[in-house]
């Protein structure tokens, strides 16, 4: 592998990391928003959200991506590969995040919320000061897990022409007729990132169970 090849893979890495980062960043609050709509039992909307989340969690990212990339221009909304990629990632990850947030909200002790109501805190204050800090803590392992899943799914973006680490590796292999070395470089980039996230998740889980054991 030449230096130029390695540079190409690192360019792919920039694409992977950037798109993953954007997907995670936007997907977190949207997932929370969806979960809140269901928690607040907003009529009709809550049911639509439930359906949306169920379908999106069952849909492979590649199918969703192709749908967005080809169908949106067809109904008059032009969309490029990068935008389609980000949109697909966000839709996908927000659906999974929604379930994580929802579990935390469902487990939230009702009497703490009633206490906040009884002292006259308004809905926004109740949520910001009492609910949110605690559900963030509870949701953290699940959300970090979802982040590592998102990164593992990014190679699929190549179907619409986005050149990520994996696509760059495939290209180089096709050009040099030595497919394995670039793949090994790709592994060397993915593995530490995912491993770091998984370790982070385990660390958070251990810290939380320790905190519960303490009197």
């Amino acid at each position, binding site marked *: 592998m030449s230096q130029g090849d390695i540079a190409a893979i690192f360019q792919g890495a920039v694409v992977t990391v950037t798109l993953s980062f954007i997907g995670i960043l936007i997907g977190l609050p949207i997932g929370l928003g969806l979960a809140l709509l269901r928690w607040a039992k907003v009529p009709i909307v809550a049911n639509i959200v439930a359906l949306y989340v169920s379908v999106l969690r069952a849909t492979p990212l590649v199918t969703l991506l192709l749908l967005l990339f080809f169908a949106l221009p067809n109904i008059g909304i032009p969309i490029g590969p990068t935008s389609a990629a980000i949109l697909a990632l966000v839709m996908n990850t927000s659906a999974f995040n929604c379930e994580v947030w929802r579990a935390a909200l469902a487990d939230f*002790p009702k*009497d*703490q919320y*009633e*206490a*906040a*109501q*009884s*002292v*006259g*805190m*308004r*809905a926004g*204050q109740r949520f910001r*000061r*009492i609910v949110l*800090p*605690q559900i963030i*803590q509870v949701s953290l392992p699940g959300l970090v897990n979802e982040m590592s899943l998102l990164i593992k799914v990014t190679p699929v973006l190549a179907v619409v022409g986005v050149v990520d680490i994996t696509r760059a590796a495939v290209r180089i292999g096709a050009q040099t007729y030595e497919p394995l070395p670039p793949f090994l470089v790709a592994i060397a980039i993915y593995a530490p990132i995912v491993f770091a996230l998984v370790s982070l998740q385990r660390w958070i889980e251990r810290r939380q169970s320790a905190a519960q054991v*303490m*009197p």
Partner: protein
Amino acid sequence: MTSTEKVLDVVGVSKRFGDVEVLSDVSFQVDKGETVCLLGPSGSGKSTLLRCINWLERPDAGQIYLSGKQVGISNAGIVMNDRELSELRTHIGMVFQHFALWPHLTVLQNVMEAPVYAQRRPRQEVRDEALALLSKVGLFEKRDAFPARLSGGQKQRVGIARALAMRPDLLLFDEPTSALDPELVGEVLTVMRDLAREGMTMVVVTHEMGFARDAATRVLFLDRGRVVETGSPERFFADPETERAQQFLQRFAVANAAGRH
């Protein structure tokens, strides 16, 4: 030590959960400085009635007035929005059976939270008052501790301080000692007795007959959603009029004899 200023006026309140009529046409009034105890067997609707007062439960029928202002229904006659209801709730304090402290905040922060955020009072003033309240309930040393480190009795005293920090016109107690180990009940009842003696207007749902007998200015006996009997504690405990009240008190006499208190 009561005046004839009506703090609470409950008129014809009814509430059903599904098929079950939990409250039927309940009416009573509480004057300033009174301590009213709601007594009755489980399922009699006492807690539901209490929770209707600050609209944690919405009554299906009837009206509730706090110092003349209707709870839950605005002047225009429509249901209050969250802002209006919250404003009104700042005048009513509530103490919960399972304390309901906020675990991510320290004791002091728990007490300061609502006056600062819901009432928008200046932080320094709130802090001074909060520390004074914590001293009053005997928990000044624990001000920077997190609730997880406190005993049940300590948590409940924090809960009382938190409710008092709002300077409420009315204090509601929802079985404040039912979740406590017996040896911790006394410290909470002491605080409550002091509050009653100082003229706080209180409505207390409780099974602690000793407290009701000593500290209440009036007791209401509920059975299956209706106010069956009402009167002074002396008269109620010594000579209950209705049969259901008599049965109820007999059960407690037996429990007493078994040496609980």
